[in-house]
């Protein structure tokens, strides 16, 4: 398998705080990697670094062998990385269709001349944008299509907003999809369904996926590999089974005493208590 994303010795400091400390990380093509860790571990900063919202002081980030350092967020998206946000950030007043259409901006190129002279190229491109938008939305069943297409995004329920955000990221036609807590705020049934969809995102759409997630059930079900961050440092890496029984990981979640008393207990319970804390 070829390396898609490679992060080498990246460090990020906010004032005196080391948010990311000498991080090494990679994603192979076709992989689903989960990033977990307690709150404040630096997971979202990690995403922001990859997508160009934060520039690392040290280290290099390579996507398909080319460095992303110094590129604007839109250029990074054009290279084939797309993300969702932890606190869903749609374009609330735009319709659901428009939200997904606008995400294809970096894959299309008609500007002023096309629409003004109604050129054939423009008509073709508009039709393609629309078609692709409906296809992407159709991936989520009936929820985002039909009468929904023309509704503004803010009328959607929380779960549907999360779905729309994934659809919007899909519409940018990425190679690597970065999902920041995709099932947060969903009920168990909805998370289960989304877990299934994340699997299909790889098998049907060919995306590689990096996912930040607190829900250990989802992490267990979809990840090829799990990376655990704490205080900006990778403390463990490997399959879900390996990571979930790793004493360092349990210590990070529950504290030293708990790790010792439980004698290497399961991460599932640890993560759940961690959830309860916030």
């Amino acid at each position, binding site marked *: 398998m070829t390396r898609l994303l490679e992060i080498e010795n990246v460090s990020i400091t906010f004032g005196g705080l080391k948010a990311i400390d000498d991080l090494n990380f990679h994603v192979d093509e076709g992989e689903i990697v989960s990033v977990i860790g307690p709150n404040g571990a630096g997971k979202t900063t990690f995403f922001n670094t990859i997508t160009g919202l934060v520039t690392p002081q040290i280290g290099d980030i390579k996507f398909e062998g080319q460095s992303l350092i110094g590129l604007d967020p839109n250029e990074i998206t054009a290279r084939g990385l797309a993300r969702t946000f932890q606190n869903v950030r749609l374009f609330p007043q735009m319709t659901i269709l428009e939200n997904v259409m606008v995400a294809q*901006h970096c894959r299309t190129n008609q500007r002023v001349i096309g*629409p003004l002279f109604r050129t054939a190229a423009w008509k073709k491109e508009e039709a393609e944008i629309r078609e692709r938008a409906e296809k992407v939305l159709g991936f989520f069943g009936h929820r985002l299509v039909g009468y929904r297409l023309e509704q503004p995004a803010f009328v959607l329920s*929380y779960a549907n907003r999360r779905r729309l955000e994934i659809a919007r990221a899909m519409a940018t036609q990425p190679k690597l999809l970065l999902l920041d807590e995709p099932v947060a705020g969903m009920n168990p049934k909805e998370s289960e369904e989304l877990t299934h969809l994340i699997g299909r995102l790889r098998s049907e759409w060919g995306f590689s996926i990096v996912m930040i997630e607190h829900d250990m059930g989802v992490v267990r079900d979809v990840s090829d590999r799990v990376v655990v961050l704490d205080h900006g440092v990778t403390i463990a890496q490997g399959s879900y089974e390996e990571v979930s029984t790793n004493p360092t990981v349990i210590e990070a979640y529950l504290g030293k005493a708990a790790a010792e008393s439980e004698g290497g207990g399961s991460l599932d319970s640890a993560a759940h208590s961690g959830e309860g804390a916030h």
Partner: protein
Amino acid sequence: MTATAANTSDAMASAPGVRSATDVDWRRSANIGGILGITAVFIGLVGMAVGLDKRMLIDPVLSLGYLFVLAIPLIGGWIAAREITLEGMTAPIKGARDIVAGAVAGLVGGAVVAMFLVMLNAWDLQELLPNWSDALLDMYTFGQGVGVGIVLVLVVGLVLGAIGGAVHVIPAKPRRLLSIAVQWVISFAVLEAVIDDLLGGFGLQAVADVIYARRGGLLIIPGLIIGAIAAFVAHRFEGKGAELKTQYMELEPERKNQVSKQGLIIMVVLGIVLPIFLGKIVNELLSNVGLFILLALGLNVVIGRAGILDIGYVAFFAVGSYMMAFLTSPLAPWRESDGILSAVFGWLPVLNWFVALPIVVLTAAIVGVLIGTPVIRMRGDYLAIVTLGFGEIIRLLFLSDWLAPTFGGAQGIRSIPGVNLGFAEINGTDPRAVFYLVAIFVAIAIYVSSQLETSRLGRAWMAIREDESVAEAMGINTVTTKLFAFVVGAILASFSGAIFAAKVGSVFPNSFELLVSIIILVVVIVGGMGNIPGVMMGAVVLIGVLGGPSQPGLLQEFSEFKLLIYGALLVFMMLKKPEGLIPNAARNRELHQEEALQDAWLKGDKPGTTKDEVDDAGPAPSAADIDGSLGLGGATS
């Protein structure tokens, strides 16, 4: 929830609807009265009352000044007696109580004015307040002297307040007819100049002579007849408009399109034919409105679509005008000076307007890029301040002595020829021709902005307006996209500038003051930001009725108080209808989210659609959807 609603309405129904005359919210009435009094004093002290007293509305009983003053207690009384009825509540039965409420407000207002009159009589503050004059005292005491005047003011306040309150007591239908009649009479009186002009255009000068007094003002008997006709017509065609609307809404989409197209054609034909019959005044007015529609459409792209708050927009208007003057005027200063320009470009002949236009547009686009590039990297307030700065810089450059050999400094550029069509020349002396020229460019501007709005670029503008950082993360190059908006805006403004130069025949730096930018901004906001018909409506109402920064409007009498009215109107709109006269759908939703959510919820709750969602892959969506729609979903995160 339904049960509670039913209970409430039961309770309301069983409550006694008729209340005693003393069941008045005294404090509220008195407060409103205080506001009335202060308003009347304010109108007097800014000089509006006396200034507008010269203009007769209804000969010989009512002047425009008195209309303003007397309307205050009437409207105040009406407001004092108004009660808000929510949906599902039984409307309270109106009666003596409401008349008392209005009368109290009117009386308190009258008392405030009376106190003011005593002061006006006792002291002389004319040095402080220029309108603190005997003329004002004379007017507010109805020419009867202070003693009698104060009593009169109290009585008039009381009576008019009571009448204002009593309006609520009249049953709905007669009230509506009465209000229509009054509106028509006042419109006929206020718009005397225009109606005179219109009637003259259709060869009906005789009618105008019958309606209006020789020295101005509607005559009483024709006024009554106009009111009666208006009421009769309103009665005869009551509900017809709504009926037509429902008929239209129920049409098949295809047929609907057809009807809209026919409507459009009719409007275009009217636009072409009507000006032939209109006189100079109205055509002049229409061409001014057209110039401002062009500007407002351009600013609408910049601010309404891309969300760039540009308050130096007049800069592009100035560039368009000056560039046109520079190229087409045989007396342009640079031709006569012995600087580099005349040495290098001396061979350049005086250009025809149409030949110069592409150069003007190109220059405006370049200036747009030059100003835009540093500006659009900023956000929010900073951006507004910087655009303001650039707007002033451009004007000051044209004014400067440094560039005077090129642009003429304070003298400007004179003798700009009109638009030469070969067989005729369009210039300011023929407002009708100017109107047609403007109309063509307005049509182009409408086409350009509507095409761009729905295109890839338009969607990107909207996304940037919503959330710039997310737009960037979604692959939109915010810098170039915003620059496009800036340049499109600049080009539309330069069209307006180019026509303006040919129409007026000379350009001066003081035609491009900050005030023009602000007025265009107010036009866009009042009309409905982001919506083409709205922006056009804004220009018609503000520029057409009140007048532009230096152009007279329909109500020429108000030109002195134009800015005051602009300000008052802006405040009123921001409070009552922030989305504008004809709002943009998205903006309307933004400002009325609760209602939009309700609509969406009702729509989503239709049996058919709910079933779809249940069938689909499992999760019970309707409960979650409803929670989310009401904004409760967020609580789970």
